């Protein structure tokens, strides 16, 4: 394992020092491992708190700033943050209008945010609502399981809910917009290589030189199946088909199409894949209203990509286009 780290045990703390140094407009609580928007709490605005395991950068710290998150809680690599962090962030960003927790549907994240919400309810006066993302069509949905994973839609949701909060909407309304995003978003990913968790020191899974893993999540967990490597055109179909099979994306005001890099895939390959994805969507009669291409929700140095489609209405597109100023997404300001 060759990584630019000092010690596997201090990766997250060390990286947060870099975030603080690179982004003076943010405020970092190193003790609690929370990245705040510099002017938090914003009076009268619903506060947005997200967080999760580290190793998915820029998610979530890179999405802190006006128009998006108020705070991001960083857990250990691939391990959700603990309730203490979430409670601290929740209290700190409450501007009197309540706080929305944005949680990816992993047992760890759900349980830690749940405990945090219980503690916040018991010990602080802050009104908390939560939205859980579960957009990964690689996982079969069922009442009797943990359900689907939250992946790419989380990025779109944080942007869109952030815009709604910035407009001064109330907690219920922001939560409703957020749930609408999740309900209309679907994702599917594939990996060419595994990643190596620094503390584990070796790749989480092994892939042969002509094999890929389809239906991966964002934690180096194995996917749904393996298959032989194939040209980009065929791999694009492996992403597009299950997404389109799960939800009707034709008609309406079009989709927001997000092709995400898993961390180790260079941009030239992502753009190439995006061309193939677009060709397939065109052929399927899906109109792309907005596009996002880049590594935004990653899995350390994993090579691969994921596709997220969001069935957008006029309002969601307006919120998507609204100004945002964060390290990783910035426009309109």
């Amino acid at each position, binding site marked *: 394992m060759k990584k630019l780290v000092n010690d596997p045990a201090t990766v997250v703390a060390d990286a947060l020092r870099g975030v603080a140094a690179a982004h003076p407009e943010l405020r970092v609580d190193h003790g609690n491992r929370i990245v705040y928007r510099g002017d938090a709490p914003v009076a009268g605005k619903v506060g947005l708190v997200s967080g999760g*395991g580290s190793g998915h950068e820029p998610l979530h710290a890179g999405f802190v700033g006006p128009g998006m998150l108020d705070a991001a809680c960083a*857990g*250990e*690599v*691939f*391990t*959700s*943050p*603990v*309730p*203490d962090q979430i409670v601290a962030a929740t209290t700190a960003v409450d501007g009197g209008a309540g706080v929305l927790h944005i949680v990816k549907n*992993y*047992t*760890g994240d759900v*349980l*830690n945010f*749940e*405990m945090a919400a219980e503690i916040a309810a018991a010990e602080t006066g802050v009104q908390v609502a939560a939205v859980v993302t579960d957009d*990964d069509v*690689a*996982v*079969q949905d069922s009442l*009797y*399981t*943990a359900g689907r*994973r939250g992946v790419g839609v989380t990025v779109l949701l944080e942007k869109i809910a952030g815009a709604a909060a910035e407009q001064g909407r109330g907690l219920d309304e922001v939560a409703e917009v957020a749930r609408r995003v999740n309900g209309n978003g679907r994702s599917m990913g594939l990996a060419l290589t595994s990643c190596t*968790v620094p*503390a*584990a020191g*070796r790749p*989480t*899974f092994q892939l042969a030189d002509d094999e890929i893993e389809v239906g991966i*999540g964002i*934690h*180096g*967990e*194995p996917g*749904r*199946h393996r298959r032989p490597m194939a040209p980009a055109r065929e791999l694009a179909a492996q992403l597009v088909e299950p997404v389109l099979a799960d939800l009707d994306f034709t008609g309406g005001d079009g989709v927001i199409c997000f092709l995400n890099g898993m961390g180790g895939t260079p941009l030239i390959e992502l753009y190439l894949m995006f061309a193939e994805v677009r060709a397939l969507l065109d052929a399927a009669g899906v109109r792309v209203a907005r596009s996002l291409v880049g590594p935004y929700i990653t899995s350390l140095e994993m090579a691969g990509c994921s596709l997220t489609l969001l069935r957008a209405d006029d309002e969601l597109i307006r919120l998507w286009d609204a100004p945002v100023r964060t390290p990783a997404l910035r426009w309109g300001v």
Partner: protein
Amino acid sequence: MTDADVVDTAVLTAWVRHFARLVAEHAEELTALDAAIGDADHGTNMDRGLTAVVAALDGEPPAGAAALLKRVGMTLVSTVGGASGPLYGTAFLRMATAAGDRPALDPAGFAAALRAGLDGVAARGRAEPGDKTLCDAYAPAVDALDEALAAGRPLGEALVAAHAAAERGRDATTPMTARKGRASYLGERSAGHQDPGATSLALMFQAAAAAVR
């Protein structure tokens, strides 16, 4: 360590310390199990949390059983993260509640506390038997413990039986298809792998048996 039929703070401390040692020894194995059907961090998570627990126990001695168990639970909740943090943390917090204001527990009281812990985990995790989680080791262990105590066997022996049951439960997770936790995302590909959480849970009973022997 002690032949006591009284589970006081010394026994509880010995138990938790021994659990921490066992987890440290098996951390790589737990992480490797988690790599196969999860995200390769269960050993690291539990080791980090129990190292913090040991440090917390090195401080001001807690006033009684409940205080000790609560300190363990809070420390786990605050340092482990992931699924296992809230789950193991809840187990110890529920044990603390069950202990009430008694300074020490008798065998039945300890067994009741452990069962309260299991109930807490099941409630928090919404897990049922057969879901391929740490409950699949935890449930048979407390059943075996109750049974042995009901049969009049001393706590030390009963905990040995509980540990054996936990290991059987752990082994039984191998063929299961996971329905909860990260392994459930694998669907049928999760079958054929031993559950990491059930594996660490068996270590918890191994430590208990050792501490009370």
